[in-house]
């Protein structure tokens, strides 16, 4: 499918770059569409730590939902959160939930990893004891696919692999021309 760029036919080149752009924008639109439907900035995440074992392992793929429906929002639900000022998303279970009344309630959550002995207060910011549901939680886990995300962990942990993969792709392109 990959063309040899050295053929230098401007028509072909333009058509091919258009095709490439179409693929990229389709992927981007799908991701953003999913984001809108689930109301989550990141509707699909890869598990990075073992703190929810044996439920989730490193490299498993999780599907998130960020609208308060059904039982995905209360205690026992599994949420992905991003503490303000820290950039690593964490997947843990809600242990306590305190909500005010009213149309726009303030909801405070305490979380814990199934595989951790203590709750998450130490993972929060200094002096923070509860998560802010609105500000810090990016979604509840509703779907699970094992292993699929492991390739992204491999690629980010072994930069050599990325180079090797790119090299292999280039090699394939060159070889296919003959």
């Amino acid at each position: 499918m990959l063309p040899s760029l050295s053929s230098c036919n401007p028509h072909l080149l333009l058509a091919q770059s258009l095709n490439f752009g179409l693929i990229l924008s389709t992927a981007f639109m799908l991701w953003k569409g999913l984001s809108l439907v689930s109301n989550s900035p990141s509707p699909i995440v890869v598990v990075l730590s073992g703190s929810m074992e044996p439920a989730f392992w490193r490299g498993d793929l999780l599907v998130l939902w960020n609208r308060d429906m059904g039982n995905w929002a209360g205690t026992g639900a599994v949420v992905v959160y991003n503490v303000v000022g820290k950039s690593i998303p964490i997947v843990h279970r809600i242990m306590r939930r305190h909500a005010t009344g009213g149309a726009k309630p303030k909801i405070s959550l305490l979380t814990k990893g199934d595989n951790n002995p203590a709750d998450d207060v130490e993972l929060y910011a200094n002096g923070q004891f509860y998560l802010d549901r609105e500000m810090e939680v990016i979604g509840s886990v509703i779907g699970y696919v094992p292993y699929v995300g492991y390739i992204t962990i491999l690629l980010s942990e072994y930069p050599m692999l990325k180079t090797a993969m790119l090299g292999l792709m280039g090699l394939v392109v060159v070889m296919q021309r003959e």
Partner: protein
Amino acid sequence: MHSTLVRIQNLFGFFTSVTFAVGLLVAASSMFLQKEMGDVKVNVRNVEVVKGYQNQYYTSRSTEQAFIRFDLEADLEPLFHWNTKQIFAYLTASYPGRKYEFNDAIIWDIIIPSKEKSKLKLRNRRAKYIINDVTNRFREQNATLTFGWNIQPHVGALTWNEKGAGSFSFPPLKTKNN
């Protein structure tokens, strides 16, 4: 060379489509294999509210803390089928409050990894988690207990469900004198 590459590509493509289709079928089968769970019996034996320090959080705040002892009987065997990896079961205490009107706190939980361990029978068990509230005041409130469970699949959607499990009241503060 060309044909070998195309063959490898086709083989890999076929492998991924078959894996994806099988995964989808297994995930869909969960909907039809779901069975109803029997009754859950919970009996609260003893509740104490004391004031003390939480040395776990490195603060000098003295907070209200509740200690609970209970019996529990539940049979989760009907919930296990071929796409059940594990069940996370938990007992939640819910109570009202002044600033935060809705409070839920998990007081005990368990990971059930297999059918063989799905019959729960607890006698005079101490709650796994001490309740300490976001407002630090919950004594003399009436609380309801809910037994909840989260079915985690090998692949597919996570499901949650719950059953009412009785109620109790937090007693007045227990002081060292009485």
